């Protein structure tokens, strides 16, 4: 396999770094990360998937989507795009929200940088840096996940992730 998934957490800096290589040219990978109908096909661990409600891929625009399980939506998330360089990178502020995209008080958020570069063989490397910001995020980390954030459906998400783990 050539996927070379890298995942590193810098706990002191509250940052997560991920990188992944894909056997596709940068144009296609860019589309897969920025077009709603494509995102809906790959984001989310099985049997869960996401369903996009709003996608405005422009600076100041938002991407609002639901995490959907066999029994319907289990939680909503939104990303607000703060910088875009077409075919190269975009920045977003990511957080849990309600179905209207309104943020929930105390919801954890992260600033995400997603960077694309062409590599040998007409392939693409994607690098993601997530910097977690709010105290609530820290709390979420420190308390072992989504346990306490019932307001945002964290319990369901926790179950979702636990269910996913159980399959392996």
């Amino acid at each position: 396999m050539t996927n070379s998934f890298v995942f590193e957490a810098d706990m002191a800096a509250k940052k997560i770094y991920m990188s992944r290589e894909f056997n596709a040219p940068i144009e296609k990978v860019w589309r897969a990360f920025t077009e709603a109908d494509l995102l809906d096909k790959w984001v989310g661990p099985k049997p869960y998937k996401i369903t996009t409600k709003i996608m405005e891929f422009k600076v100041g625009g938002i991407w609002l989507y639901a995490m959907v399980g066999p029994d319907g939506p289990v939680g909503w998330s939104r990303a607000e795009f703060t910088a875009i360089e077409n075919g190269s990178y975009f920045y977003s502020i990511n957080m849990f929200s309600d179905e209207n995209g309104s943020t929930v008080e105390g919801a954890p958020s992260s600033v995400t940088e997603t960077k694309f570069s062409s590599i040998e063989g007409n392939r693409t490397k994607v690098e993601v840096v997530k910097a977690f910001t709010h105290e609530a995020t820290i709390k979420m980390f420190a308390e072992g996940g989504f346990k306490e954030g019932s307001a945002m459906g964290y319990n369901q998400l926790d179950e979702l992730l636990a269910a996913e783990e159980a399959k392996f």
Partner: protein
Amino acid sequence: MRRDVFQAIADPTRRAILGLLVAGAMTPNAVAEHFDSTRQTISKHIQILTECEIVTQKKTGREIYYHFNPEKMKEIDIWLERFRKMWEDSFDQLDNLLNDL
């Protein structure tokens, strides 16, 4: 003010103290001997670590010993592993999608 594990590990001195305590429980004096800082400074760091619950204190005889609490760190690991797995799975799905694109 609320303390959390991140505050515990955000400071280099506190990380060094944790490093010592991972090897075994110590009295505050024994910890302080490893540093150039004043005992008061070290004791303040230990207090923060205790408030974060990453260090617990136990009295043995007349001495107080500080112990590392690995459970607190494990919580972070579990969360991270879930997060990592979620993205790894999604990226694998993206491989398939890109093949068809």
